[in-house]
């Protein structure tokens, strides 16, 4: 091992006396383990606080906080080792130094990998307990580790658990009280020595050969080949489109939005306000065209909520089945063309749910270069689920060709932005290196819980901004400001984009959130060509306020401002050119 790797070896707290140092927080329990071993499930059970559980590495980027028996509990980000080499490693290593007790969660079915970190923790001198999680999977595979042997080798309690079913957690809670520093000592401290020691220990603890599982073994191999994997990917995308784009966006939403929203809720809201005798501008703001109790409620409750739920449901299935890292492998070649590697598919797919969430997830990319490219691509060219809903609803009425034209143009923009940044930005993006988790049946409870949690998060985040946007537009309408704004943007709208002058209203809305911009196009009586131009402009237009905030926080105000200005230029340039092309080929 070269000398540059010595940071990976051992933690600074190497003597047991360091444990009681005043630096350690009172009774702090830290959950540490490899990514995707059930740490979050154990954390949720212990602390009663929900931490997201999924089947791809790196779900927990920040440490989650909770309490157990009046002691603070922290769920550290998943990491394969301690050291200073990545954000997750740094956070986890820091937490281990502060911990009074470490609960090292390991995957009993993949113990060979996990033992590397376990040995580092056992060398750290901090009292610890090992939660031998997923023993059911290991038992089924015929490779249940010998817990007593492991306990003896490490000198710390080892408790078999099945966290998602709650098995073994009482014993684990008891064992936390009996945690003790590991008696393990390693001669030499480099990665290679520790890896060899981990392999030797594994051979002592797991003596059987793994049983073959016919279907699962085949799927795990087939899903990463082109001839099986691509059809599987196409099939899952088609399934998601059928669920989100057809069943929910068209059938369900047309019922909830028109029947429940516009025909039942809005008249009801108006009658209530009218009964109170409120009139004039206040009435307009509350229950008018863009009213807080009319359009806002209809849009949020009857249009957005079902779509967002359907999207997060699909995403939860992709995550929990373990398919997502396999998709990353399949698309690695394609993404390398825009200076990213396959890993970036995760923020991009998440971005289709919510660009803000996608932007946050760019953290799991390893270099600043990749983060910048992914953030730009997300905020320029990826429509979020709310926007997609409106876009699907608007374009589907005109026929499939318009949907394809829209998708093709957006994809071309994505490639153009990605390749340009790849050329312009200095340096090189690192190659793909990703662990492929085992394929598992998603557990219905976990999928539902995740759908609800993420859906609620999104709605909480979106609602105030939407209400603010509606309020601004209503006030502008009541005060006549909307007319001024329309007159100001008129040349751009009418002469450059060939759109009706009222379309400038959608731009005001779009400044707050892009999807309301799109929502405003509904009743404007646009021709298919006008709708396409308007939707392209709105998609490429400025990201929602929440995304801007996140960008400013993660990449600095300057980058955020540049991207914001850039979207104005790109959106209108592309829209104008497109309007001319459509006229020229005679479809407008």
């Amino acid at each position, binding site marked *: 091992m070269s000398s540059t790797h010595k940071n990976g070896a051992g933690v600074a707290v190497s003597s047991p006396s360091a444990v009681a140092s005043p630096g350690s927080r009172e009774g702090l329990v830290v959950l540490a383990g490899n990514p995707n071993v059930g740490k979050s499930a154990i954390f949720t059970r212990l602390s009663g606080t929900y931490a997201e559980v999924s089947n791809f590495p790196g779900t927990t980027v920040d440490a989650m906080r909770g309490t157990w028996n009046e002691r603070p509990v922290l769920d550290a980000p998943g990491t394969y080792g301690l050291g200073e080499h990545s954000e997750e490693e740094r956070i986890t290593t820091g937490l281990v130094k502060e911990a009074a007790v470490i609960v090292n969660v390991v995957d009993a079915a993949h113990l060979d*990998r996990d033992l590397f970190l376990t040995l580092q923790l056992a060398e750290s001198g901090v009292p610890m307990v090992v939660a031998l999680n997923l023993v059911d999977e290991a038992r089924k595979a015929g490779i249940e580790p010998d817990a007593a042997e492991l306990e003896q080798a490490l000198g710390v309690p080892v408790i078999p658990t099945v966290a998602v079913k709650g098995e073994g957690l009482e014993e684990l809670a008891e064992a936390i009280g009996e945690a003790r520093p590991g008696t393990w000592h390693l001669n030499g401290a480099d990665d290679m020595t520790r890896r060899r020691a981990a392999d030797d220990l594994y051979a002592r603890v797991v003596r059987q050969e793994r049983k073959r599982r016919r279907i699962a073994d085949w799927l795990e*191999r087939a899903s*990463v080949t082109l001839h099986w994997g691509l059809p599987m990917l196409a099939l899952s995308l088609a399934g998601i489109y059928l669920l989100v784009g057809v069943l929910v966006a068209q059938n369900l939403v047309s019922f909830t939005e028109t029947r429940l929203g516009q025909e039942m809720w809005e008249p009801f809201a108006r009658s209530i306000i009218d009964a109170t005798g409120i009139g004039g501008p206040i009435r307009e703001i509350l229950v008018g065209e863009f009213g807080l109790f009319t359009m806002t409620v209809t849009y949020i409750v009857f249009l957005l909520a079902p779509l967002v739920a359907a999207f997060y449901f699909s995403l939860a299935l992709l995550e929990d089945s373990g398919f997502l890292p396999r998709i990353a492998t399949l698309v*690695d070649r394609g993404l390398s063309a825009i200076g990213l590697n396959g890993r970036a598919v995760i923020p991009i797919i998440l971005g289709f749910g919510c660009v803000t969430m996608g932007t946050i997830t760019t953290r799991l990319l390893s270099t600043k270069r990749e983060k910048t490219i992914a953030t730009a691509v997300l905020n320029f060219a990826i429509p979020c689920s709310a926007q997609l809903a409106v876009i699907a609803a608007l374009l589907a009425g005109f026929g499939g060709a318009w949907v394809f034209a829209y998708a093709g143009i957006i994809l071309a923009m994505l490639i153009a932005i990605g390749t340009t940044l790849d050329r312009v930005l200095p340096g090189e993006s690192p190659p793909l290196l990703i662990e492929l988790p085992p394929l598992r049946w998603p557990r219905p409870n976990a999928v539902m819980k995740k759908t609800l949690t993420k859906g609620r998060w999104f709605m909480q985040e979106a609602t105030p901004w939407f209400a603010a946007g509606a309020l601004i537009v209503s006030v502008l309408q009541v005060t006549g400001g909307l007319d001024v704004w329309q007159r100001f943007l008129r040349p751009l709208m009418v002469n450059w984009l060939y759109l009706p002058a009222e379309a400038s209203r959608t731009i005001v809305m779009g400044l707050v959130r892009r999807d309301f911009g799109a929502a405003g196009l509904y009743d404007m009586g646009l021709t298919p060509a006008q709708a396409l131009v308007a939707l392209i402009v709105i998609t490429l237009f400025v990201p929602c306020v929440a995304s801007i905030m996140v960008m400013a926080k993660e990449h600095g105000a300057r980058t955020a401002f540049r991207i914001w200005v850039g979207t104005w230029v790109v959106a209108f340039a592309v829209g104008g050119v497109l309007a001319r092309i459509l006229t020229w080929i005679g479809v407008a």
Partner: protein
Amino acid sequence: MGIDRVPVGSRTRIEAIEDSTARRELTRLGFEEGADVEVVSRIPFGPVVLQRRHRQVAIGRELARRVRVSSQ
């Protein structure tokens, strides 16, 4: 030769990983120098998927070239 040239379905031993970051990560994952691995898949111009015991890891093609195996 690089592991990108090992036929799919055959086993081989990793001799050297000529990339320090990848060496560190692969060592932690249990795909260290000296490990016996199977090449599970090679996506045309894309990643190579390796398997050891029952665990899989995907590495980009460029990196696979720098994961050296002994040519038999």
